[in-house]
């Protein structure tokens, strides 16, 4: 019997290899690369976390909200004359163009998020269905938008668009840090702080926290629940728009009809890792998922491992600490 088992599992290296040399050699550049990817995951994760905090719903369509922003960014940049070569523009013009594309991405994502909420979820909320119905609707909406993009743009990714000439800025222990990495990480941190402060300090933010904590009481206290939900979706969309331009900066060929899908799963894993419903946790979780994924893919030797590793992290977090690192705290955080 044991003999059969041994025959069933060939004991050569055809299953999994570990490449420690590459891991050690590329450690620092992997760290920065991972943090950059992680920043994008964090930006997407924020949309999941906000909607989950307020509605207790995994908005599967958020990956399509994000990819709509990516398409808007790519179209705007192509319209402005960007292409697969590094742009040769004066700094103010470059910044102007990038801001314009950022704006387009944010608007597109926010509009899609708004429409998804209005058309699907709001209609559904009036009917008070079981939770399963929400989830199936969410995946249906995600699938529908994905295939609308497929019919419109086809299976191929859009031609690549390069925003910044890639320039190494400094190096740490031999790992080069590039300008776009710094831009992305800084943008993610700034966005995160802005959203965090908005939710902690503004009147609307207090409404969001109130609805997340106890929707019935919040309604009794005069919070307009429907308005808060729409605003939550729109904030998620706006942040996904920031994520969209960051993604294009990172992966110039990143606009593909199903490109949001696996990113969405990873971003959700990030949100759970940081503590779902927790704005700061989203960025922390994103950065960690980015790092772990990047280390994993170097160690194991194929870029697809990054997705597998992120998924394994999600499952392990769910076993060990389902509330995430920082805890699920949107409702409980005080102003």
């Amino acid at each position, binding site marked *: 019997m044991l003999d059969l088992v041994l025959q069933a599992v060939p004991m050569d290296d055809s299953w999994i290899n570990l490449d420690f040399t590459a891991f050690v050699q590329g450690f620092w550049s992997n760290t920065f690369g991972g943090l950059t990817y992680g920043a994008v995951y964090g930006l997407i994760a924020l949309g999941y976390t906000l909607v989950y905090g307020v509605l207790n719903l995994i908005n599967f369509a958020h990956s399509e909200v994000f990819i709509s922003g990516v398409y808007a960014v790519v179209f705007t940049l192509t319209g402005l004359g960007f292409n697969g070569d590094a742009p040769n523009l004066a700094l103010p013009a470059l910044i102007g163009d990038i801001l314009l594309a950022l704006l387009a991405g944010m608007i597109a994502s926010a509009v899609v998020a708004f429409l998804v909420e209005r058309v699907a979820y709001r209609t559904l909320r009036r009917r008070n269905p079981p939770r399963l119905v*929400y*989830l199936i609707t969410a995946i249906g909406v995600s*699938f529908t938008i994905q295939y609308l993009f497929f019919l419109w743009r086809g299976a191929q990714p859009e031609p690549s668009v390069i925003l910044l000439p890639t320039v190494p800025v400094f190096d740490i222990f031999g790992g080069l840090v590039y300008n776009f990495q710094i831009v992305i990480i800084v943008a993610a941190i700034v966005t995160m702080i802005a959203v965090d402060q908005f939710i902690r300090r503004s009147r609307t933010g207090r409404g969001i926290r109130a609805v997340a904590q106890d929707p*019935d009481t919040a309604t009794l206290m005069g919070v307009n629940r429907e308005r808060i939900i729409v605003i939550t979706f729109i904030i998620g969309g706006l942040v996904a728009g920031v994520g969209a331009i960051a993604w294009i900066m990172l992966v110039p060929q990143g606009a593909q009809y199903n490109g949001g899908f696996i990113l969405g799963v990873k971003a959700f894993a990030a949100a759970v890792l940081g503590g779902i419903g927790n704005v700061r946790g989203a960025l922390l979780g994103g950065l960690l998922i980015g790092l772990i994924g990047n280390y994993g893919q170097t160690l194991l030797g194929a870029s697809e491992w990054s997705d597998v590793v992120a998924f394994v992290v999600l499952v392990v977090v769910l076993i060990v600490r389902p509330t995430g690192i920082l805890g699920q705290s949107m409702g409980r955080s005080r102003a």
Partner: protein
Amino acid sequence: MSTVNGPTLQPDPQAEQDELNRESQRPRGGAVSRWNTLSRPAQWGILLPVVILAYAAPALNLPILSTETGGGGGTNWNINLFQMSYYALIAVGLNVVVGYAGLLDLGYVAFFAVGSYVAAMFTSPDSPFFKIPYLWTLPLAMAVTMFFGVLLGVPTLRLRGDYLAIVTLGFGEIIRLLATIIPAVKGQVGFQNVGRPPGSIIGEDGVARPLFSASNGAPWYWLTITIIIVVLLLVGNLERSRVGRAWVAIREDEDAAEIMGVPVFKFKVWAFAIGAAVGGLTGALAGGQVGFVNNQSFTVQQSILFLAAVVLGGAGNKVGAIIGGALVAYIPNRFTAIADYKYLIFGVALVVLMIFRSGGILAARQKLLAFSRKAYSFLRQSPGSASDRQRSEVKR
């Protein structure tokens, strides 16, 4: 408020009233309840012609039904029938998870894939493993996928249901990625000459050919519907047993079920494992018929199609699942003009169905299931307002 309810944030008296109105307007004694009052032999008597018709379907290649567009185009009718039957089988399996226990599995294709790979790796000459006869891979595939189901279910099923949705969604993709990047499972190259059941047939030219071949769908179709009937009997028995009642209780209100002493976690894992096993069985069948398994066909889109099949037919209703599964396979084969749009169509169908008719084509009325026929006949026979009151109590 229970956590099992949807994300609705406040109770809606209007909706509840609507629900009550709908309940009272439902025609009493419709086809379903008339069916339920029949004796078991009478039910079999009615079902027998249906079963015979199903077995005779390869002869029913009528112009209006046919998926062959003439000139060798379209899908061969028998292959189409096999596809319909395996979609139906997979819908029956997924229905156990989604329909009975109310757990959303968005990566069902992963179990299908594992089943296909088990069939391929233990029968194909391309694989270094020891070989077993094809038919033995069917139970083996079920066992292996069941193991995967438990492996995935145990960490996630303790938590709230929606984590399961995202974990299975990820798992579906991960299995495909693993099939690509692990050298031993051969990625896109895949495994050729996957085994087939024994038996041969003498062709017109007097040469013996294998009865079960990739180009001959009919034997595969007959094998699959036989398996469907067996699975339906088993699942039907489970549905009417303590297990089935536990599933319905979990689906309707997990907290209440837990308080009433239903071992919620255990039965959720069971539902998940049984669903996975049927998925693996179907995968082994499909892999055997096509005769070739690689990483290309196990996409997330497939999972969503499977889900659409269950939802279309009516989650929680095994007959509905069969019809839904058959339709999801048949429609793109029959109407080739819209085949390119099938993902879009079924995606929209999911949303529209959920918003307007979340019960699907054949809505399950399983609130009474726990009491089954006894309650039905009791309620139908006892006269006067007492029965009405009891009926409404049972239904609530």
